């Protein structure tokens, strides 16, 4: 509980110390705003990588139990994500609200739950998909680690989007977490209105991932027991 908060806070301090002065001009000359942006980015990416990697192994890890009891198998990856969501609510949400108040955001903070819920749905979908694939292919974790790292580096967590060369900027914009990171920053760091188009994209991503996850999991499920 404490550690899940300690990690992004410590990382934020490190990034602010190393890159803060280089990027400060992109954040209105305020080191604070750079730190807020980094913290929000780290929160999202941290939640994504923690929940998906936990969900990934969840079905296989409980293979012994599934061989003894007939329980709904979707419960395992979903539980991995929801357990972390609890920490997101009691740990991160107050901090996001605090950042909002410090940045002078007002009623727009009421938008906060929407991207957070979409993010949870997105991670549930990814978790369902990965946990089903892992039953069939046990080398998925090494691939996923690589992919998570790629997503992490390209999600503009610790650098401003503006420094990315125009030719490859769309890699960042097509990053699946871009919508969540950006809308949460907009809401908590007090732009007048969050970008509704990005909010919509984020919500669709969440819904879409959840649907794909459920469909794939259901389709793969009959093959589980011969491999657990």
């Amino acid at each position, binding site marked *: 509980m404490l550690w899940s908060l300690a990690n992004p806070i410590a990382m934020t301090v490190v990034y602010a110390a190393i890159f803060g002065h280089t990027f400060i001009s992109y954040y209105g000359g305020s080191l604070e705003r750079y730190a807020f942006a980094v913290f929000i980015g780290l929160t999202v990416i941290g939640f994504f990588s923690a929940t998906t990697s936990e969900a990934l192994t969840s079905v296989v890890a409980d293979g*012994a*139990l*599934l*061989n*003894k*009891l*007939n*329980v709904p198998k979707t419960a395992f990856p979903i539980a991995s994500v929801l357990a972390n969501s609890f920490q997101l609510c009691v740990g991160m949400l107050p901090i996001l609200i605090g950042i909002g108040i410090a940045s002078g955001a007002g009623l727009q903070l009421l938008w906060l739950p929407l991207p957070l819920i979409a993010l949870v749905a997105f991670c549930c979908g990814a978790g369902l998909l990965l946990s089903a694939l892992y039953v*069939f*292919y*046990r*080398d*998925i974790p090494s*691939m996923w680690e690589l992919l998570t790292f790629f997503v992490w580096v390209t999600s503009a967590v610790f650098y401003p989007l503006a420094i990315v060369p125009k030719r490859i900027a769309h890699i960042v914009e097509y990053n699946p977490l871009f919508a969540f990171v950006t809308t949460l920053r907009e809401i908590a760091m007090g732009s007048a209105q969050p970008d509704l188009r990005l909010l919509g994209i984020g919500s669709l991503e969440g819904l879409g991932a959840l649907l794909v996850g459920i469909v794939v999991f259901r389709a793969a499920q*009959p*093959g589980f*027991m*011969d*491999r657990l």
Partner: protein
Amino acid sequence: MIDLRGVTLDRRSPDVHGNDLKRRVFALLRGNTRRPPLRRVLEDIDLSLAPGEKLGVVGPNGAGKSTLLKVICGILQPSGGTVEVSGRIAPVLEVGGGFDPELPVIENILFFGVLLGFSRQEMLSRVDDVLEFAGLQEYSDTPVRALSSGMVARLGFAIATDVDPDVLIVDEALSVGDEKFRAKSQRRIDRMWSAEATVIVVSHDLQFIRRSCHRAVVMDHGRIVFDGPADEAVTNYVSTVDARASDVLARGRALLSSR
């Protein structure tokens, strides 16, 4: 009520390529699209149990006894035929299966109860009972990994029999624990026996089957080869084992004398 009609089950044998995406892709590139063969593990099983019936299942290792139980529990879906089961089923967990080794005993009791379909509230009221029966009151906050294997087996038995299931599934778990626990569990078994619960026992303890079950089936190579009164089933099973043993003996003798 349990009703199995013409149940067959094919299971996939372990993959020659292993469960590995990288190797699978390389195998495909080399044009190797061979799929692992299916193995028939249950063949044309007809089995019908009335409520309250106590059935013993005997047979050699690998005959499909445990697999049959898994089909009845709904863990495995049959490849053919139909399975109808009504009522709540509780399996007795064997050593090492199903419990979360890191969680304390008390959490495991709650967890297992919830998985069996009870509310957390209801399980909380049963926890003391279960702990008492398993003789683990002092261990309620100990993680399961720190228990001895006998204690884990006692715990599994205590939970499954405490929840008063309609169908109790017992796979080789009755001969667990020390003498004191055996006497206790025998009393509880007797109680279950007199109650309405349907019980299915897989065991190599033929005396137990003979003594406690109305009826027994003998399984061999995925088939039910005998279904009848427990006494006759055990006699039948023992005679096939004896026949096989004397066959092996005869072959051994022939081999020796031909030298």
